[in-house]
């Protein structure tokens, strides 16, 4: 094992592999920045191109692409209020307000730096404790993942600041809409009205594009540019954080990075979930809670450190056991098979040289990401110079084509616009959208694992309490729901009643 460690390092510094890592970072950043193009899609498309490479070169490029896409997503999220990837949805909340305040460059610099910290943390975890942590994955079955989903739902409370009832309403609606599609146990198509495109449920990425981008495009058209107003961003604002700012963001980044690694490790949850968990914790630990949502740096740092840390986290079970931790790593595993390497426990032994090269490549990819990111981002910030009424229609074109590209489906374009209208209505009446997003992310996980757990427990709800991991997680969820009550309780009695109404999602365990 020890020798593979150094063989891997020696492999990575080969100029060809370094070049592959940089190429991957550039492609990944671009793909991530485009709504509708995902890292998974890009990896799958580039996989055939890597056949002619040596396995470690191809894998290094794809791993770098995967990592860079996580950062790329935040570019569109911050500049256009349209998350380029689902994992960047949480970045919109504080990132876009920062851009509106003229701090687009700073927000992107924070995102890039946080991505670097999160990515490096998870690479270190990969290189050192992957074999140990890999086994942890086996402890997460349906019962435990159900508890994780419930814990995630409590984030809705945090995001509903100021209007708890409306926030919970939005979250519950998201969960309800997530039940559209085939039921896991009986295969009954629910609320599909015979439309095949709905059998697999509402495509989350499609909904997300609509929810954020359409209202933004409409807003840009309506507002236009006020007369004599300076452009949204002073391009001259400093991009990278100062030394002091860096030290300030460090605890937040590390905490979020750890959250990202753990979330990546758990099967079925990835960057989209991790970024919300990290955002929630950043707010819990922050002194200036009221600033969240108005463009506070910590609100950008947390999700971005977390979603890059997910990459390493998701690779841990992939490397240690051959179990993909996310859909992107599943495609990466396919990349291994192409080169005749069967994913499985032998990755660490028989193919240790390739595997360790990949792990080192992830670490180096962070550096490549940072270097490429500085130049790429500077170019992107130029977007803020363009008049609003030009940007609006362009966002629509990207969203329409992006939504189509996901499943090659015109139906998805319609679905995207429908969610766009919903998002516009919510924005107009100041009903928070993020809880709806959480509901849509966690709904399918909740539904699947609830049914599985009840099948395993033969219909007995006690299964959630008897299991130590799930019991602990559910207890934390309950505490966190209660803790959120006084913090956002400005509305008084009604809030307490609403929490009573908002809990039946966890109420299943009582």
């Amino acid at each position, binding site marked *: 094992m020890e020798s593979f460690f150094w063989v891997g390092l020696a492999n990575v510094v080969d100029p060809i592999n370094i070049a592959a890592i940089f*190429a991957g970072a550039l492609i990944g950043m671009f793909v991530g920045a485009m709504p509708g193009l995902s890292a998974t899609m890009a990896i799958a498309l580039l996989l055939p*191109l890597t056949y002619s490479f040596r396995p470690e070169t191809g894998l290094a490029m794809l791993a770098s692409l995967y990592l860079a896409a996580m950062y790329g997503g935040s570019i569109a999220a911050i500049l256009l209020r349209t998350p380029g990837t689902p994992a960047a949805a949480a970045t919109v909340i504080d990132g876009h307000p920062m851009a509106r305040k003229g701090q687009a460059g700073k927000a992107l610099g924070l995102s890039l730096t946080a991505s670097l910290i999160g990515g490096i943390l998870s690479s270190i975890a990969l290189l050192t404790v992957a074999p140990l942590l890999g086994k942890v994955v086996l402890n997460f079955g349906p019962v435990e993942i159900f508890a994780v989903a419930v814990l995630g739902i409590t984030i809705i409370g945090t995001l509903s600041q100021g209007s708890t009832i409306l926030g919970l309403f939005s979250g519950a609606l998201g969960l309800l809409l997530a039940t559209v599609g085939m039921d896991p146990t*009986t295969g009954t198509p629910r609320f599909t009205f015979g439309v095949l495109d709905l059998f697999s449920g509402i495509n989350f990425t499609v909904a997300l594009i609509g929810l954020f981008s359409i209202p933004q495009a409409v807003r840009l058209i309506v507002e236009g540019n006020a007369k004599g107003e300076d452009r949204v961003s002073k391009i001259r604002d400093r991009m990278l954080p100062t030394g002091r700012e860096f030290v300030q963001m460090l605890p937040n980044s590390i905490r979020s990075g750890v959250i990202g690694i753990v979330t990546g490790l758990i099967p079925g949850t990835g960057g989209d979930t991790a970024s919300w968990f990290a955002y929630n914790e950043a707010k819990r630990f922050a002194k200036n809670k009221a600033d969240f949502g108005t463009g506070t740096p910590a609100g950008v740092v947390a999700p971005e450190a977390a979603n890059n840390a997910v990459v390493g986290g998701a690779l841990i079970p992939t490397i240690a056991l051959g179990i993909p931790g996310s859909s992107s790593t599943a495609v990466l595993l*396919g990349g291994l098979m192409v080169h005749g390497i069967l994913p499985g426990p032998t990755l660490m032994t028989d193919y240790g040289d390739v595997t360790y090269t990949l792990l080192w490549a992830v670490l180096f990819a962070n550096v490549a990401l940072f270097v490429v990111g500085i130049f790429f981002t500077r170019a992107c910030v130029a977007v803020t110079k363009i008049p609003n009424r030009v940007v609006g229609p362009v966002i629509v074109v990207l969203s329409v084509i992006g939504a189509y590209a996901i499943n090659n489906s015109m139906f998805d374009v319609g679905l995207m616009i429908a969610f766009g209208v919903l998002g516009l209505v919510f924005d107009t009446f100041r009903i928070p959208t993020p809880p709806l997003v959480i509901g849509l992310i966690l709904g399918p996980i909740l539904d699947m694992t609830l049914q599985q757990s009840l099948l395993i427990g033969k219909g007995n709800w006690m299964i959630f309490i008897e299991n130590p991991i799930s019991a602990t997680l559910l207890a934390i969820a309950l505490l966190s729901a209660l803790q959120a009550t006084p913090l956002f309780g400005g509305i008084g009695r009604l809030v307490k009643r609403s929490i009573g109404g908002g809990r039946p999602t966890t109420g299943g365990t009582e």
Partner: protein
Amino acid sequence: MKSTIIALALTAALGTTALTPAMAQDYPTNEVKVMQGFKAGGGSDALAQLVQPFLAEELGVNFVNEYIPGATGAIAWTRLAKQTKPDGGTISITNTPMLTTNYIMNPSITYTIDEITPIANIVTDPGIAVVAADSPFNTFEDFVNAAKENPGTVTVGNSGVGGDDYFTSLQFERESGVQLQKVPFQGDGPSWTAAMGGKIDASFTNVGVSFPQIKEGNLKALAVFSEERLPDLPDVPTAKELGYDLVAGSSRGYSGPAGFPDEARQELIAAMQRVVENPEFQKIAAERAMNIDFISGEDYAAMLKKQEGQYQEIWAEIKDEVQKQ
């Protein structure tokens, strides 16, 4: 074609070459679109990535993948059956048993195998029953006896309702008269992982996906659902030898729309035949744990028809029970 150019552009700097398809021969179209009912990177894609480069060379045409995931492949197959011109320019990867169970189980899925032209099956991944390494079940009999003693309590994972493993569980229940507690997962990976972690008692899954774990001793294989013992797992009995008439697995091949030009079909079959006989192809397939099972033309059609009948029968029997859950 276009991505080939990109490939060249990207790889030129790194000093590598990309595949250049041979000159077009007499296939009716220069480009064949391959519709896949699943996401890029899944099992269908693995087949496409394995077969199509060889096929492109044999036929001198380009193969372009189009991913149309959703409704366990039904969106792509409905498009194949109802909206595709039978000019040889579009085919689809067809996966069994989903190709038939989709419309057997869901009245709103309206295509049938009579509306497609089966071309050839390429691979079959046999079914297998696995348990955790520290499971109390050491033989398939242990497992069956436990299920007999306490009906409906032994939990068995499958890759999802309507998938091959789900129907394998149903067929096994019918054959043996025992009742299992079937737990659906989203795909094979989560199903065998849950068995490995002891979250469920056993998993009915496929050999190709679980073999590395069996070899490493993380999973115990109790029985395979193939006609004969597998060369890679000589100690694992088949369900057939143990007295259960159960042969099951998941197969992937190619089909075209109804009315597919016969010449094009024959040409594809002949090219596929040459591909599966190519030693280089066989070597790569073996490396990727793909079990070649070449069944072409009318034989493939007959195989699909036979499966359709079997699944219709099983589903008619258990439909009401499932609806009561």
